[in-house]
């Protein structure tokens, strides 16, 4: 087996092992209630982090609006699930949930294509600010959407309309009365699907093309790679996965508002990606898990926890990126010396 295959299997093994441990703990009642409530958000954030890593790490485009896709996925997924359940009378939760995930992914994918066309023409910081702008636009537009169910038909309205039937999505108040359908097993399945898609994409011909474009756009263009096509491929895949994660997230709560998916959420996911290591998928998974659980563990500090979080964030960035500090830390660990020296040479 090649080193790459072992690496991939290790990532899958880690996730499966974590899932089994969690299931055993739930069965034995060894898991606290608050931690059990965190399981689905952890799965959601893992998918968000891995998909953002595809854009930021593999494709090399800094995106500050990833929560926008999550928002699109959450709302379209919730509407789909509720329509199937209340409008068409589908009682099987699994069918509703799967349909919600597919719809969430589909709509987020469409948003990804629409946003990708203008965004991917830009470079660097300009690209970052436009993704931020799109994230804010999506949040604003979501605040103005009204959807109601009447019998088996859906009604759509924009900015304070009068809609017949029962209101499902109510503008700024968001979607209310949502049935909590998300399950931990579904979260695990979604994480596995995400890993399968992302790891195989990275390891494919297209993945190598995407990374070549990241490393040198001009060189990649001159050997005949279609830059727009490959960039779009990474961007839209990332959007679809984020939309599916959003649908799972939306169906985990009884109410969901657009303000849950603001700029801060995009930044939160970006922090997972950067702390886990840019371009490192396994790192993203670990960082997303730890940093979702960490604020809960810091509950004892209550008021100080976000402060501690901020300080930890700054210190980690300083420790991993400052040359003086880095040589200091690598001096402490003799085994790491060679790798630090190698990095210094690059």
């Amino acid at each position, binding site marked *: 087996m090649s080193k790459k295959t072992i690496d991939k299997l290790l990532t899958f093994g880690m996730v499966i092992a974590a899932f089994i441990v969690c299931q055993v703990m739930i069965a034995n009642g060894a898991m606290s209630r608050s931690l059990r409530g965190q399981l689905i958000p952890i799965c959601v954030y893992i998918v968000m982090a891995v998909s953002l890593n595809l854009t*930021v790490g593999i494709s090399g485009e*800094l995106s500050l609006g990833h929560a926008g896709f999550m928002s699109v996925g959450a709302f379209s997924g919730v509407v789909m699930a509720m329509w199937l359940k209340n409008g068409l009378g589908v009682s099987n939760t699994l069918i509703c949930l799967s349909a919600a995930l597919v719809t969430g992914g589909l709509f987020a994918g469409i948003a990804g294509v629409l946003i990708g066309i*203008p965004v991917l*023409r*830009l*470079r660097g*910081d*300009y690209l*970052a*600010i*436009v993704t*931020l*702008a*799109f994230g*804010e*636009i999506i949040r*604003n*537009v979501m*605040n*103005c959407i009204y959807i109601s169910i009447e019998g088996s038909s859906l009604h759509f309205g924009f*900015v304070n309309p009068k809609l017949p039937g029962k209101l499902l999505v109510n*503008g*700024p108040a968001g979607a209310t009365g949502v049935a909590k359908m998300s399950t931990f097993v579904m979260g695990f399945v979604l994480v596995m699907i995400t890993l399968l898609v992302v790891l195989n994409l990275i390891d494919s011909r297209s993945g190598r093309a995407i990374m070549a474009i990241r490393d040198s756009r*001009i060189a990649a263009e001159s050997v005949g790679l279609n830059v727009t096509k490959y960039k779009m491929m990474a961007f839209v895949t990332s959007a679809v996965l984020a939309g599916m994660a959003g649908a799972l997230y939306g169906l985990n709560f009884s109410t969901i508002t657009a303000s849950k998916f603001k*700029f801060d959420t995009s*930044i939160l996911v*970006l*922090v997972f990606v*950067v*702390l886990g290591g*840019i371009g490192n998928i396994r790192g993203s998974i670990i960082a997303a898990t730890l940093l979702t659980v960490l604020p809960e563990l810091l509950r004892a500090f209550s*008021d*100080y926890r*976000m*402060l501690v*979080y*901020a*300080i930890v*964030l*700054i210190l980690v*960035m*300083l420790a*991993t*990126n*400052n*040359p*003086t*500090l880095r040589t200091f830390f690598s001096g402490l660990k003799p085994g790491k010396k060679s790798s630090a020296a190698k990095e210094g040479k690059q």
Partner: protein
Amino acid sequence: MTLFLSYLINGISLGSVYAIIALGYTMVYGIAKMLNFAHGDVIMVGAYVSFCAIQYLNLPPWVSVILAMILCTALGVIIEGLAYKPLRQAPSLAVLITAIGMSYLLQNSALLIWGANPKSFPSVVNIGNISLLDGRLLITGVTIVTILANIVIMVALTLFTGRTKMGKAMRAVSEDKGAAELMGINVNTTISVTFAIGSALAAVAGVLLCSAYPTLMPTTGSMPGIKAFTAAVFGGIGSIPGAMIGGILLGIIEILGKAYISTELGDAFVFAVLIIVLLFRPSGLFGKNVREKV
């Protein structure tokens, strides 16, 4: 027509605040090539300092503004020295995340010090309102002071970067850091001075913003910060007149959009205009188009 004029004046006033904030963003970006996300929170700190000086120390408003400027300048220099200076050679994403961490740090410190309850900011401006066209058009004192402050700052900055030694050093560093260092310019000092000026401007902007919109919370600075950042990009990031024009245009677009199109979609409208502008001019209105060389 008078309604339109009053919206326009409100827009210019709001835009002037954006412009003052955007100047801080654009100067720091031009020199340190980094997006200082904590800039929006320096605005909030400035407003709180001024608020405390007026409320608890009973100082006159203009003293409180100067106090806020001094403290924010110190804050800006300290932030730069502690968090950004060690990362001069680091990849830009690492610096960005550090700046975001700094922004969280400032917001949460403010939350601990001043609490989550919004404070009602007393206006620092005690000039009366002006009514024109037989009282149909009312211009508030805050609006006049904001627009005047904007003009004064613009002129002063243009003179500073064009005429003084430090200003020329700044331009040299933003052009080419290595070459500037070879010419004997102290790059670190220049960057610190840039942060100091940017933060002092942020304090002024904070006071003016809260005089016009008097709710003060730990998150007060973040949305205007993002919008000012948008304004800086809109005008071409790194360009001082660009930040000015970008800020004012953004303010006008926001107020007119909210008044004539939809209140809920006002912000969406601002960002949509930004995207359209960037599609046709990928480096902003006044940005230099840098050609990529192999």
